[in-house]
């Protein structure tokens, strides 16, 4: 295989990795503050992408021309819409389940995901068909032999890195981030420090959901298409990524995101039969990884009192 093709695979892997990492960070944030898996996260991503699409229809109807302005408006709409959705889910569905067995919460969010997905399919106009996602980024590409570098991909990748760096700065440097980390370690002591637990939880869910929305928009721009089902697989991959990284650890989630993308890419390149097996290979590798490190690569905090 020549360098150009290899480069193409690496680029492709990085694009997927950044999107997966953004989804996985959400999973790990939710797990951090409430010790729960919010499986509906992938479908919140779908809602985000469709919100952006709806906003696009709205702003073009209003006659907005500038692609950058449009992009800004629809991204904001997606972020705002899903942030509110995420906070509402936390407040009315997940907080009331505190103290319930973790598996019940997982089931609840699995079902919530189904409900969101079905709602998009049923209630978005013609929602069961794939939708074209508008091309708002400059087209064009640079060619190096068999290696094509699309400019919009570069922009998407840079935006993804910027968002992730931003989130990790927020978590690691800001006072609110400090509160989130404190709640993640020991919610009760965090309350004793004067932290308003509910406010922190709601903010975290809003933040994670906004990340998902951005990932959804980026995904739409990368493939120029979205559909009601996109969140299911993306959510599952994000969940896997968060788990193989080690739940509750933001760097683990990022690592897991890129690792999963790498597994898929390796599967596509190396499998002798057909690249169609790449997802099979990636999920099988995840299962093997779980057998080897049952709580992920960067182990989760855990202790049981007897």
């Amino acid at each position, binding site marked *: 295989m020549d360098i150009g093709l290899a480069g193409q695979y690496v680029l492709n892997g990085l694009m997927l990795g950044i999107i997966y990492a953004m989804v996985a960070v959400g999973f790990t944030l939710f797990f951090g503050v409430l010790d729960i898996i919010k499986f509906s996260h992938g479908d919140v991503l779908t809602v985000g992408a469709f919100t952006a699409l709806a906003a696009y229809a709205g702003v073009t109807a209003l006659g907005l021309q500038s692609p950058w302005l449009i992009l800004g408006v629809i991204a904001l709409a997606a972020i705002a819409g899903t942030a509110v959705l995420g906070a509402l889910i936390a407040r009315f569905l997940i907080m009331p389940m505190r103290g319930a067995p973790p598996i019940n919460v997982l089931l609840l969010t699995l079902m919530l995901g189904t409900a969101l997905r079905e709602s998009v399919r049923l209630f978005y106009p013609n929602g069961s068909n794939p939708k074209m996602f508008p091309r708002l980024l400059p087209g064009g590409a640079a060619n190096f032999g068999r290696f094509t570098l699309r400019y919009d991909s570069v922009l998407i990748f840079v935006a993804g890195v910027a968002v992730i760096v931003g989130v990790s700065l927020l978590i690691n440097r800001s*006072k609110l981030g400090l509160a989130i*980390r*404190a709640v993640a370690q*020991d919610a009760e*002591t965090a*309350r*004793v*420090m*004067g932290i308003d*637990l509910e406010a922190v939880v709601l903010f975290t869910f809003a933040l994670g959901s906004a990340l998902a929305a951005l990932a959804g928009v980026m995904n739409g721009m990368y493939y120029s298409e979205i559909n009601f089902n996109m969140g299911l697989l993306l959510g599952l991959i994000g969940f896997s990524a968060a788990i193989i990284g080690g739940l509750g650890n933001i760097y683990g989630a990022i690592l897991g995101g890129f690792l999963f993308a790498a597994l898929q890419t390796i599967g596509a390149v190396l499998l002798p039969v057909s690249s169609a097996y790449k997802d099979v290979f990636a999920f099988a590798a995840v299962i093997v990884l779980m057998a080897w490190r049952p709580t992920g690569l960067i182990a989760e905090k855990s202790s049981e009192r007897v």
Partner: protein
Amino acid sequence: MSGRLAVENVFAGYDRTDVLTDVSLVAEPGRITCILGSNGSGKSTLIRAILGLTPPRTGRIVFNGHDLAGRDTHQIIRAGIACIPEGRKVFSRLTVAENLRLGAYQAGNEVARERMARVYGIFPRLAERAGQFTGTMSGGEQAMVSIGRGLMAAPKLLLIDEPSLGLSPLFVKENFSVIRRIQELGITVLLVEQNVRQTLAIAHYGYVLMQGRVVASGTAAELVENEEVRQAYFGDGVRPA
């Protein structure tokens, strides 16, 4: 009236059973009030009730003239109460500086910086280790972090839950002298302890808790002589050696 806490006829507990039955006590401003009792006497539940973590079923808790009923923990903290919890409860995966910053969570950055400087003055050791993860420190150092974190809130009332638990005698001694200095800063202290002699040596007034009830109270001098105190720890009928 700054920092006066009154617990009035409080019943509190978990799962339908009361751990505290009809507990009443007062922590006078600017003084060290202690709660003595053996394991399982309800001391920790009392602290939780005051902090709103296990709200009382009945009875009132009044701080500075305000009834704390119905307030969430962060609102109670805002009223001027802070706590150094049992077992220290430092955030082990956060640095010393971050732990201290959390102690003054409700204060602004500027104020927090000033207070942090003051805490570093009391515990120079913490200043040396500001960037270290707390989990990698010794038990004694973690105790300093926990106390420092409690001071960061600049509270009117500080609840201290078993500061000597699991510490070597040397650190216990040091801790008690620090508590003395805290009181000298004008902070009301409610100290929960099993270590009777050292506690009574620094406390002004004390209550003895046994199986969720106040069985004795008095000045430190009175309690030193009190038979109930001995009984709470050594049962009936045993005289000191």
